[in-house]
């Protein structure tokens, strides 16, 4: 069997905002087809780390490799080309409100990837079908539920054929009953072999779907392992504290 390809590698990543060190030293690898989950308390730098992976944030130091290419060195004018390889899904969806769903999914295909319009449209419809929203192609984003908007946002990223997908708390802004549809799309994606790095608080989903779970706290990767190891047999005190706090919150939420 061939060695699995490393799709995303983070090495010694540091990021400061002014005097505040958010990421102190992050090392992380994501292999092809892996779904890696990042958990940790808010303010632990999870989103910042994700945003460094397509250079929406500029790392202070360290290196990030996408499919073996060191993206932390490439000049600004090559950023757009690099970003085509890294799909990103945001907590707030950020669909373009002035365009139909179909146009949302076509825009970057045409303008950044330089696909011909008929091809872009066919690809957009295919991706919308994959997230179960082909019938909403002509709708405007405001006519969709939050869950549907997030699925369109996923289709928009997928249409560019990225090698890696980054998810930044994709379900945090959703009503609880809409979370499932988005998670299902992510699960389908995983089954199709997409490489995914996911920052999320959906612990149950991490348990079911993640290949590996990374626990971040205070700007470091404190612990990582399979879901069984992380949730079943946490080693560090910080992870134990975090997990017990989260499970209390879950219990609290169910009691409501």
């Amino acid at each position: 069997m061939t060695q699995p390809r490393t799709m995303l590698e983070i090495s010694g990543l540091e990021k400061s905002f002014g005097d505040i060190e958010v990421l102190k030293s992050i090392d992380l690898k994501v292999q092809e087809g892996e779904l890696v989950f990042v958990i940790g308390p808010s303010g632990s730098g999870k989103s910042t780390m994700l945003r460094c992976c397509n250079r929406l944030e500029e790392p202070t130091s360290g290196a990030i490799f996408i499919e073996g290419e060191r993206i932390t060195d490439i000049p600004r004018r090559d950023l757009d080309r690099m970003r085509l390889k890294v799909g990103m899904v945001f907590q707030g969806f950020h669909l373009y409100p002035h365009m139909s769903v179909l146009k949302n999914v076509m825009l970057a295909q045409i303008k950044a990837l330089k696909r011909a319009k008929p091809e872009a449209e066919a690809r957009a419809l295919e991706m919308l079908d994959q997230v179960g929203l082909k019938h909403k192609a002509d709708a405007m984003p405001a006519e969709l539920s939050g869950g549907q908007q997030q699925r369109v946002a996923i289709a928009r990223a997928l249409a560019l054929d990225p090698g890696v997908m980054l998810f930044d708390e994709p379900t945090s802004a959703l009503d609880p009953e809409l979370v499932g549809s988005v998670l299902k799309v992510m699960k389908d994606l995983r089954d199709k072999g997409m490489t995914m790095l996911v920052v999320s608080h959906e612990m149950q989903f991490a348990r079911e779907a993640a290949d590996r779970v990374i626990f971040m706290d205070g700007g470091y990767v404190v612990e990582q392992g399979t879901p069984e190891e992380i949730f079943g047999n946490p080693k560090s005190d910080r992870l134990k504290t975090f997990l017990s706090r989260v499970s209390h919150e879950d219990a609290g939420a169910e009691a409501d």
Partner: protein
Amino acid sequence: MDTFIQTFFNLDIMSQAFPLLLKGAVMTLKLCAVVIVCGLAGGLMLALAALSPNRALRWSAIAYIDLFRALPPLVLLVFVYSGLPFAGVRLSPFMAVVIAFFLNNSSYFAEVFRAGINAVPKGQTEAARATGLSQAQALTYVVLPQAVRNVLPDLLSNTVEVVKLTSLASVVSLSELLYSANMARSVTYNASPLVLAAGMYLLVLWPLVRVIARYQRGLAVN
């Protein structure tokens, strides 16, 4: 009553003056077209400069915007037309008006655009950039269409202001609508041409004002 009508609504005099006023109106429209198109383009450039991360560019744009919003347009016009010749710069009345009102108007449009762009959530740009669109593409296809929609009533209001502003051009003897009407008044010793001119301004501006009012009411309802 009859004297009143003879003085202000004299149809004979109005029809005599009409060809002259029509010429003036054409000049007013020409002036508006140039000032509005240049003002919009310049305003957009200034707004982008005022939002630029480059400090020197940003501060020069803000200084420009503040200066020309604060200076009264009539002062600017008189300075450009009658002041600059002292420095050897002699401009035709048309050019003087265009330059003075461009300075004034581009700074107003810049403020409107800046507000519109600022009101577009930052996540929109980030989403666009994350899909590989360049800064310019993100601006053109994602941010500006939303920004313009945000401030459409203000852009229209400012356009109405430009049309009214052009009447100031009469002080540098540019034969636009007001100047022509005033000429006709002094030739005929009758105020009717002025009333006719007012009517012509109204004819153009009233529908615009209506549209703005409806749009603003629509925004309030939504």
